[in-house]
């Protein structure tokens, strides 16, 4: 295809099916933020370095600022808006982050939530510090990261989200 081609892709985002016409050079993060109006996904470095734009594509943490939207054709995308329950109850990772006081400026937070969530989805039996090897992908400039350890190690995510 040429980079100015228009194409039609089908995907589900947070469980909702979408058919969208896009240009082939549209980035996944722009599809999500601008076309689907899901502004919770953040753009910070726009180069793949920080992970603020992390979304899950078929359960994998994907750098939305570096992924072309067409690669999500046929995929199930999860953005931060789809993580909490329909009545806005926090999911286990969100709750662990909330209880430990993770968000500071909050700009890295959606990406961090999704990254940690992807880890627990991939590793049904998580091992101690292993989640840290995943969290190493994303930058938080405000915290000293220790708060993520407190949230995810000492308090493993609670299953009984109220």
């Amino acid at each position, binding site marked *: 295809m040429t980079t100015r081609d228009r194409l039609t892709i089908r995907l589900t985002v947070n469980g909702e099916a979408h058919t969208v016409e896009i240009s082939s050079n549209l980035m996944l993060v722009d599809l999500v933020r601008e076309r689907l109006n899901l*502004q*919770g996904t953040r*753009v910070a470095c726009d180069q793949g370095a920080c992970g603020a734009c992390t979304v899950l594509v078929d359960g994998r943490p994907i750098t939305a600022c570096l992924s072309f939207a067409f690669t999500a054709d046929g995929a199930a995308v999860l953005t931060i808006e789809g993580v909490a329950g329909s009545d806005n109850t926090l999911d286990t990772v969100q709750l662990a982050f*909330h209880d430990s*006081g993770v*968000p500071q400026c909050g700009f890295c937070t*959606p990406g961090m939530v999704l990254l940690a969530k992807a880890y627990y989805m991939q590793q049904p039996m998580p091992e101690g510090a292993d989640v840290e090897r995943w969290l190493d992908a994303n930058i938080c400039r405000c*915290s*000293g990261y*220790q708060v993520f350890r407190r949230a995810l190690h000492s308090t493993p995510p609670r299953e009984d989200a109220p």
Partner: protein
Amino acid sequence: MNIRTNTLTQVGQSIPDVDSRAKLTGSARYTSDIVIDEMLHAKVLRSPHPHALIRSVDVSRALAMPGVAAVVTGDDLTALDFTYGMFIRDQPVLAKDKVRYVGEPIAAVAASTEELAWRALAEIRVDYDVLAPVSSIAAALDERAPMLFGDELHASALPPPPPNSTWTQEPSPNILFDFNHGFGDVDGWFQRCHHVFEDRFTIGRQSHCALEPHVSLARFVADHAVEVWSNNQDPFLLRQDIARIFRLKLDDVRFHAGLVGGGFGSKSYCKIEPIAVLLARKARRAIRLALTMSESMMTVCDHGAEIWLRSGVSASGETLVREAVVNLDGGAYADASPSVAMRIGTRFNGPYRWRAVRSRVRVVRTTTIPAGSFRGFGAGHVTWACESQMDMIARRLGRDPYAIRADNFVRLGTAGAPGESVLDSDLMEGLQTVGERVGYKSKERVPKRGIGFAVAVKGGGGSHRADARVRVWASGAVSLAAGVTEIGQSTRTVLTQIAAEVLNIDPDRVAVEDIDTDTTPFDSGTHASNGATVAGLAVREAAEKARVRILEFAGGILQCTSAELDFCNFQVRRGENRYLLADLVAQRGPGVDTMFAGEASVQTGSGSFFWMPVWTAVEVEVDAETGAFKILRLINATDAGRAINPQRCVSQIEGAAVQGLGQALFENLAYCEAQPLNATPLKYRLPRISDVPHQFETIILEQGHGPGAYGVKGLGESGNLTIPAAIANAIADAVGARVTDLPITPDRVLKALGVASKPNTNVTRTVEAN
């Protein structure tokens, strides 16, 4: 000594950030999320040259592109008061005639999409006469150096010098500012002291790298009235800048500020806002100018520096006299450099008692990114040099670095220097705390491992005005307005807790208003860790006034004095009786206001309103073959006075510590011949979780001496200051290698090991308590 008063219900509670849920679920909105109908997208053309004359800028091809609405260049500035800068206004909104660093804005395009704006930039032709760059402090001070500016002084609004100080603005074209400070008989004491030590230190440049890049939106609502949204922490200062630059009336400029995605100093004072306004005026449309993170990195950074310290001590190591000479790399434009220079120049006494101190701080102009404010406002520079040297002095005298500090500390309630406000913290308590936690005295020595300390105090909260308004609705809601920008420091949460404490209500009932300079009470800017302390006082007073009004109103209805009444959970209490405020209001019938407001204003004096101390202990293990080292343990303590929200205090200190860790280990904007090498996120290394030691503890002391509400004082800038020096000191303790340049890279450690006189210059850890 920790003070706790049991009657407090909100103060001291670690409630989550009031925006925590919104931030966790993606519903939080930042300036970068704002969409205005019909807005255009702007992009900035930046200089590829560090130093060049602009012969011509041809925008015709860009303008001819369909979808391009306007292009602005230096030519559009002529009728404006077009320069800005915190105290010295030398930075043009867009380069005019000359560029002075790689990345300097030359022109800006407004187009229907961002992509189109990018493409239009490529169509602008600029003709340059390339000049020789001035890439370093040494290059700038060379007499044959090219000049960045002519001889004339720029417009300025410098405050009077602090006590015992003088300054000169732009003494020569490549020197922006020359600051001199001193007290006591420096020369006399140098003659009288037993030992004099002279050392030189350097500091690389750190980049702020807040995750949300700079963004501004602007639209004219009438020919002479503009509305601006910017993720800047100084909406009220910016209102003045925009009014001055565009020759508008102050009340015709309206700034909005909501949640800001981090700043660390990069989002204070005027930055890209005038470009957005200029384009909005020319295009007659709303403009959104969003920088990339690379562009943000090119907008402002911290100061590189070289620092000479000459310190004289008595035979026993009593600190007597010090002289400091500092050259700061201010980059191409002033930004906040004069202010940073003044803070640096007045802080060389640090946490110790000196008889005489003299300092000279010069800000040098180079053709590099303008340097501005960075968390600590220069206190990190001072601390790197002073706390390294304190250790070096101790080791040279064969004294314990811990004990020599303890001996010389400024005492609680005394002034560290003539004219300074008295210290509101017990420094010994903090040192003992981190010393015990790290096991300084008790631990067996292990080869290649060492422990280092560093201590600093930074002043905060001076010359600040903060107003606040608290409105209580009988229906059960409270709205709080203050001009402190929420930038991740949890100001909204802390102010909420203070209001809830006064009003005896659940913090959930309080909503903090976003900032709108038309309606929000004034604040002179989110700086110097003053939010909780200064605005906190204003909020407490405003809430108190609202409470008094409620009780007076209730007293009128219940026919008693307000002294007999209490207010709690939107109920008025009189003895055992409880009356819902809403019911009392309803009793009065229609026509009665259902809202009770209180307003307050707090102005602090010119000295430090409070002192932020920080104590750090670090244990490292050095690989003597490669110079690489591991941080085994990092213990950081500070004094919050009173922690309104201990969890949020810990967040601040932990985050600052890791920013200090990055500065210590690898963060550095590198240049080659005035071309930036790594001013882009893929190349500039930031700390990640794997860089942070597992044994990383933060201790919040509550000594109770703060001047704020409930004894609080600020702490946001303290946690990073001491980390680099503590690490260097620990390395010296481990293997005898002394690194005096930041960052402390393995090659520098190895080099220092090569010149280390003895492989391990251990001193006895005496821990002499005093």
